[in-house]
C-alpha cells in the first residue's frame, strides 16, 4: 500500500517528529524512506552563528546541518531502508513535489510549520503548498 515515503525536513523539531512518524509507518508497510532537505540559495538567515563555550572553543555539535540532524535521529531508530538527499532550490515546495513525482512516492510526510504562523498566513506555508500540488497523499504531522 505504501512502498515509498518522501520526508522533506528542515532540521526543526517538528520535521524530526515527521520523520519519526514516517519511520513508524515505514515499519508497518516495510516502505523505503527518502529523507529530503531543500536548501534555499542565498538565504543568510539559515546560516547559524558559531557557538562557543565559555573557554572560547567552538562547539561542533551546534553546527549540524539539517541532514546531519536527521541522520543522527534516524540512527537512533535503527531503521535500515532510509536514504538522504539534499537539493538547493529557490522554491522548496515545488522541488519537493518534483522529487515526489520523479521517484514515484506513495506518500509525503512533513511537519506543518517552518516559517511561523504569520508568514504562513500571508505567504502560504511550504506544507500547504505541497499538500495542494503534490501528486500523492500528504500527511501533515504536528
Amino acid at each position, binding site marked *: 500500500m505504501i512502498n515509498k515515503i518522501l520526508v522533506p525536513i528542515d532540521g526543526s523539531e517538528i520535521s524530526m517528529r515527521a520523520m519519526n*512518524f514516517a519511520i*513508524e509507518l515505514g515499519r*508497518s508497510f516495510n516502505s523505503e524512506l527518502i529523507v529530503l532537505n531543500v536548501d534555499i540559495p542565498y538565504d543568510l538567515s539559515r546560516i547559524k552563528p558559531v557557538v562557543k563555550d565559555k573557554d572560547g572553543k567552538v562547539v561542533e555539535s551546534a553546527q549540524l546541518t539539517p541532514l546531519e540532524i536527521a541522520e543522527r535521529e534516524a540512527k537512533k531508530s535503527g531503521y535500515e531502508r532510509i536514504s538522504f538527499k539534499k537539493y538547493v532550490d529557490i522554491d522548496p515546495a515545488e522541488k519537493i513535489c518534483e522529487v515526489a513525482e520523479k521517484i514515484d512516492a506513495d506518500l509525503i510526510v512533513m511537519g506543518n510549520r517552518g516559517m511561523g504562523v504569520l508568514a504562513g498566513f500571508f505567504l502560504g506555508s511550504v506544507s500547504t503548498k505541497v*499538500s*495542494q500540488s503534490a501528486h500523492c*497523499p500528504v*500527511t*501533515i504531522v504536528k
Partner: protein
Amino acid sequence: MFKKILVPVDGSSNSWKALDTAKGLASKFGGELIVLHVVQTYSSANLYLSGGSDISLTSENRQLSHIGSRVLETARDRMSDFHGRVRFIMEVGHASDKVVDVAREEEVDSIVIGSRGLRGVKEFLLGSVSSEVSQHSPVPVLIVKEPDPG
C-alpha cells in the same frame, strides 16, 4: 498511530477516496473510524444577501440536514465491508472548526481528509477546508487527493 481515525466527508469524490484510504489504514492498524459530516447552514447574513424570508431559510437548512444524512448513508454503504468499529456523526457549523473540535473531543490520533485541490488565486482567497484543518488540527492530517486529470 491510526488507532482512531477521523474522516470528514462532504460527498465529493475526493472525500470518498479519503474514506477508502482511512478504511485501508484502519484495517491495517486495527483502528477505529469516526466518519463526520458537517452541515454548513445558512445564517441570517446570507438571508440579507438573498432577500429571502425566515421560513425559506429554515426549509433550506432542513434540506441541508437531509442531504447530510444522505451523505452519511452513502458512507455507511461504502463501509459495509469494514469489520472494525465505526461511528457516523453529523454536526452543524463551520466545516474546518467542527472537524478540529470533533478531533479534540473524540481524542482521535489522526485525520484523513480529501483535498479539494484549489490552486493559485482561488486557494489564496478562499483557502480550503483541508489546509485549514491541517493548520489547526492537534494531530497528524493525511490529505488524500485525486490525481490530476491532465
